């Protein structure tokens, strides 16, 4: 990136503490223009707290945070005018119709009445909900509501789109609908910051990923690079493995995880895991597959439940 180009988001030593609990513990990262960065992490990792600071919802405890090159503490109103936010909950206005939800939201941005109407209709077209424009939002399906929340986030022609778990709770059809729209927006150069629990969503939409846990950044990088460096290329999972597999894996120093009834072995392409281990030690069930982002995620953040 050229020297004179400013980052869309630039965080340094960003910290958030509330009720005596450190939610975000001094993280530093950036987002370049046109980039899509995904924040991944188990529940309570600090993802939502991080993005809430970025869209000026909650004040940071310490550190520095610039959005569009402007300090958030001082220029919050100007920054908020240039951001679109899809919050985790569908907080559409149930007292208003589909169209009014967009029109009145536009008014919060001081968009003139007529422009608000035009923009609202244009966005309803984009999310294929024109036919429902006069309906109550409570009559929409989950997928439609999510699309409407996305449209609402675009009402001000934002330069940065922030998405907090955009497809959580949607069926596969609805998820793909949302993804297709996000891909169109990305193709037009929109910068995106998103959090998600879905690894397929992260690898499909994001250029770069940041994996967080306990308020800290564990790793960051391109999805493919993260997979290669943290889970290799090929994976063999053996159910109810015998002692000889375990010994063999230890002896050859393969990257692996031992679970209660399963061993997962990670290897580079050159390791020829499928031939060497797969064929030799498969007794009952044996899965040979490519390494995924989910492997990386679980290896880094552990397999314990988070509540």
């Amino acid at each position, binding site marked *: 990136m050229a020297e004179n180009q400013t980052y869309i988001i630039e965080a340094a030593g960003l910290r958030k503490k509330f009720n005596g609990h450190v939610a975000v513990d001094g993280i530093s990262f950036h987002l370049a223009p046109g980039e899509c960065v995904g924040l991944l992490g188990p529940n309570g990792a600090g993802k939502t707290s991080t993005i809430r600071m970025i869209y000026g919802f909650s004040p940071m405890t310490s550190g520095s945070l610039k959005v569009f090159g402007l300090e958030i503490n001082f220029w919050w109103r100007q920054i908020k005018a240039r*951001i679109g936010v899809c919050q985790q909950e569908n*907080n559409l206005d149930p007292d208003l119709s589909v169209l*009014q939800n967009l029109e009145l939201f536009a008014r919060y941005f001081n968009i003139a009445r007529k422009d608000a109407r035009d923009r609202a209709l244009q966005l309803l077209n984009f999310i294929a909900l024109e036919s429902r424009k006069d309906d109550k939002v409570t009559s929409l399906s989950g997928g439609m509501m999510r699309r409407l929340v996305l449209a609402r986030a675009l009402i001000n022609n934002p330069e940065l789109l922030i998405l907090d778990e955009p497809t959580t709770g949607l069926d596969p059809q609805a998820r793909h609908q949302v993804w297709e729209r996000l891909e169109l927006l990305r193709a037009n150069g929109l910068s995106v910051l998103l959090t998600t629990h879905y690894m397929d969503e992260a690898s499909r939409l994001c250029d770069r990923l940041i994996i967080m846990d306990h308020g800290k950044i564990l790793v960051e990088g391109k999805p493919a690079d993260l997979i290669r460096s943290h889970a290799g290329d090929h994976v063999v999972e053996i159910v109810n493995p015998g002692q000889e597999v375990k010994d063999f894996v230890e002896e050859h120093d393969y990257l692996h995880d031992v679970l209660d009834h399963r061993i997962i072995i990670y290897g580079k392409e050159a390791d020829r895991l499928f031939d060497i281990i797969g064929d030799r030690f498969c007794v009952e069930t044996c899965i040979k597959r490519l390494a995924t982002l989910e492997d990386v995620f679980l290896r880094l953040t552990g397999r314990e439940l988070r509540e």
Partner: protein
Amino acid sequence: MTGALQVANISWRFMRVWNRNLVVYRKIWLVNFLVPLFEPLLYLAAFGVGLSALIGKVSHNGTELSYIEFIAPALLAITIMYNAFFENTYASFVRMYYQKTFDAMMATPLSLEDIIAGEIVWGATKSVIAAAIMLAVISFFGLVHFPHGLLILPISFLGGLVFGTVGMVFTGLVPSIDMFNLPIFLFITPMFLFSGTFFPISTLPEWAQTLSLALPLTHLVNLCRSFCLGEMTADLLWSIVYMTVFFILLFPVALMVMRRKLIN
């Protein structure tokens, strides 16, 4: 951040929040109009026809008033109080907590303070609308002296700001919507009864009269009654000053408790 500093976060954009509430209000304007239209008729029937016969005349500032002349302006004051107070307690709480309307608004250039200011000014607007309708109704019964009576409209806005702000403070403090019963019992009900509404405060013991003067409704009743009767006295100015100061001091508190509740 303290309430006084938070006032600096208010911009004219608060009118966007006000407008949102107006759009919703207009959707069911007929229902919204019916209550202030017919409620005074019910009260006038009950008190004017029923109770008046038992009570006879009430002495007010040296003049004898019929009971209906005495309580009609008080009912107006109570309507002003209720409209703003209930708007900024139950209705605001529903928007804040159940509908997450404020959360969505905070992802726009609106500040939390714009939202709260918009809500309170909307509550006061509802007070003005209700007062205007009710004023029209009771003037048909010859209970309003014009043009003095028209002064009730700006006063209803001030009264709405006062009681809306009180409501908003409670909204920022109560942990759940059911808990509004407590401030209603502790604050609204005593005011409803002891602010010179249904009987003159001069009939109360000395200490209770002093206490009654601290209640903002006493001043609102005083103003409404004087304007309905066409009286213009210097003490009315004190009532206006008292309500204004009450609002100015309490408004930053409302901002503060709401910030503490919504932003962490």
